[in-house]
């Protein structure tokens, strides 16, 4: 729904000055809103962002939240990851001020058709593939969302009839109100993010919000093999289309095929994109080959499920590098795959102890103090024809700024090793 006037003259406060908070504040200012931003963190990064936003006439508060920035506002925009229990959002609730998310704000201004992808694993791959297929078919499309390229950054450039392939997390779905994707895709559903959700039901409820505003002319695409999703999809008004992986196409590709056929895109275009697609960075990314040993960067796997996914898609016996910051992970689901596919493992980070207890006795385990050391140990244990897989099952914040940095450090270590070898 394009409503250019929605924000005109409104007083809006954006909570959270991360990537999407910055571009959202800028977009709102450009659309005529009186914008303020508040972020409890006062770091070099947020200060740099503040000085950039000041040129747009945006007032930025760092290091604290004051009630003055919430009271009297017409609207509060919460960045993804801001909990509804945080101080500013509790104030807003108390004052009766509506709160929306960044996705919703961008949606109000967007003239494009939205294809929204959510799920526990494979979101980024599917979002990227759908965008690439659309471009291959000669349509104007942008790939954005929870992918490192916020929706609000792209809205300005969008025109009528364009397509947006949008990755949305369950966090972002919690704050939607009128967001109505033409095609909603729920890839799969599994236990992660339990630190934020009290129960599976709550998590499922967040995921299924993706279709609450859909009409009978819209489409909902889900995995046929997921009984939980199939049951939840019964509540949707939109047309239900399901996909299932086959011998030829994995689940992600099957989902892309279904979406493409809904959009009326020729199969040949899709196949051409599949052939060309080398994967996305930090997700089963080929990081090099040294004396017959393949290195695979899967730093984006911050959950056990993501690693289960990765291991089921790796063809060779491998040396696994895992560990990082824990959030009460249950490692049981990965044990069977580890037994079948992993020969030895190198553990890093805070989670070392728990992972080694969980996997102890199945395979030989090593510990390393740094990721660089882990790469060297893994290489020394690997035989030609095997692979070294970084798929941590944990978040990166104990040793790195984010998973991207962890992946880059891994690739740098591999390059260093290649020079030495």
């Amino acid at each position: 729904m394009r409503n250019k006037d929605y924000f005109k003259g409104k007083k809006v406060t954006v909570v959270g000055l991360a990537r999407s908070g910055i571009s959202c504040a800028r977009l709102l200012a450009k659309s005529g809103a009186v914008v303020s931003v508040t972020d409890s963190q006062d770091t070099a990064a947020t200060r740099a962002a503040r000085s950039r936003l000041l040129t747009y006439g945006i007032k930025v508060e760092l290091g604290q939240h004051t009630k003055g920035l919430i009271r009297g506002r017409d609207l509060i925009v919460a960045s993804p990851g801001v909990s509804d229990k945080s101080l500013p959002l509790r104030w807003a609730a108390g004052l009766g001020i509506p709160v929306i998310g960044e996705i919703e704000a961008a949606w109000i201004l967007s003239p494009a058709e939205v294809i929204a992808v959510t799920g526990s694993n494979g979101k980024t791959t599917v979002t990227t593939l759908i965008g690439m297929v659309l471009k291959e078919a000669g349509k104007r499309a942008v790939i954005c969302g929870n992918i490192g390229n916020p929706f609000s950054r792209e809205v300005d450039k969008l025109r009528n009839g364009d397509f947006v392939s949008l990755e949305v997390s369950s966090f972002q779905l919690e704050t939607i109100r009128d967001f109505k994707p033409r095609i909603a895709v729920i890839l799969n559903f599994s236990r992660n993010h339990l630190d934020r959700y009290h129960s599976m039901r709550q998590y499922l409820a967040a995921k299924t919000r993706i279709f609450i505003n859909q009409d009978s002319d819209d489409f909902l695409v889900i995995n046929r093999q997921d009984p939980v999703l199939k049951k939840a999809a019964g509540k949707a008004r939109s047309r239900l289309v399901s996909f299932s992986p086959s011998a030829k196409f994995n689940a992600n590709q099957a989902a892309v095929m279904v979406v493409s056929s809904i959009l009326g895109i020729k199969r040949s275009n899709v196949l051409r994109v599949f052939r060309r697609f080398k994967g996305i960075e930090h997700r089963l990314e080929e990081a090099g080959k040294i004396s017959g040993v393949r290195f695979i960067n899967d730093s984006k796997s911050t959950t056990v499920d993501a690693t289960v996914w990765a291991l089921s898609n790796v063809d060779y016996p491998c040396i696994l590098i895992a560990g990082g910051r824990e959030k009460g992970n249950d490692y049981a689901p990965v044990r069977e795959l580890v037994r079948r596919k992993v020969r030895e493992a190198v553990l890093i980070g805070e989670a070392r102890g728990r992972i080694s207890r969980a996997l102890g006795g199945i395979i030989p385990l090593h510990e390393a103090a740094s990721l660089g050391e882990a790469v060297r140990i893994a290489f020394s244990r690997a035989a030609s024809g095997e692979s070294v897989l970084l798929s941590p099952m944990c978040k990166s914040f104990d040793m790195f700024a984010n998973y991207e940095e962890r992946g880059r450090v891994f690739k740098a270590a591999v390059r260093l090793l290649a020079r030495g070898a």
Partner: protein
Amino acid sequence: MVRNIRIRLFNVTIILISIGLIMIYSASSIYAWERYSDSFFFLKRHLSFVMIGVALAFLVMSVDYRRLRPYARSLLLISLLLLVLVLIPGLGREISGARRWFRFRLLSFQPSELASIALIIYVADFIARRGSMIKSFWRGFLPPVIVIGAVLCLILLQPDLGTVIALGSVVFLMLFISGVKVSYLLSLVLLSLPALYLLVFSVPYRRMRILAFLNPWADPKGSGFQIIQSQIALGSGGLFGTGLGHSRQKLFYLPAAHTDFIFSIIGEELGLLGTMAVIILFIIFIQQCLKILKNTRDRFGYFLALGLTLMICLKAIINIGVSCGLLPTKGLPLPFISYGGSSFIFDIISVGILMNIARTGEYP
């Protein structure tokens, strides 16, 4: 900010209704005394309409307008059924050659009023559902045109050309703004022009009305009578009017003084000042409605608000235009002010829905 829109819309509507109450009493008391020996006859009935209307408006105001959507089609089907039923002699009540009303003891009900709201809801829902497919001929243009055509044809059979033209223009504009191809819409207009010509000039009373509009003095005692009386009323009001209650035209000169021609009586008793005040109130009303439009976040809300606003706006323009002799005589009441049963009630319900749409974003 959004709250202020609602408060202003509410205030303007209340003022317009109050003006209506005063003027209905002023314009109808003598006629009511002559006919029913009760000078309050029309005022009392109008007050009961006001109460019913306001109660219904508060009812629709308290329910999220998006919950109307699942009922869009059934509401339209019910209206279509009623539009067919009203044509059956014995069920529908015939007044001066037109079969437009159902009549129960005290209340008369005009199904075309329900059909107007139902059609606007349906078209808004359709536009919201189709999204960008609205540009296609088979899937975006033809389905609503068939449905709209059916509704308008049934209203035309009553016959009620005024409602057909008003409602037709509203849904036409809704489709135009939603992005239906202009070439389709233009060809539709061109195709309907001959039909419109036939409808107007083959029916003697309509032709007379058009001729009377062009030169009322050609037949001052016949077809030109109403227009001339209306202009006499407006003219004798002058700048400041003859004073509240002092209208002479309401003394059986101007027919339908408390319904379709109430604007002329306002002009006579309160002068240019009074008529300008009414017009300014309508402008404020429409301005607030446009603010509501600009505050919507979903296509359904946008187009529903657009349709309802256009309908009220168009009714006001046509009514005022007819009173001044700027438009040929068409029996459409002045929203919120005219005495007019179901039409009044549906106008108030429209305001209720608009207020509800103004609450967009405040729902959890």
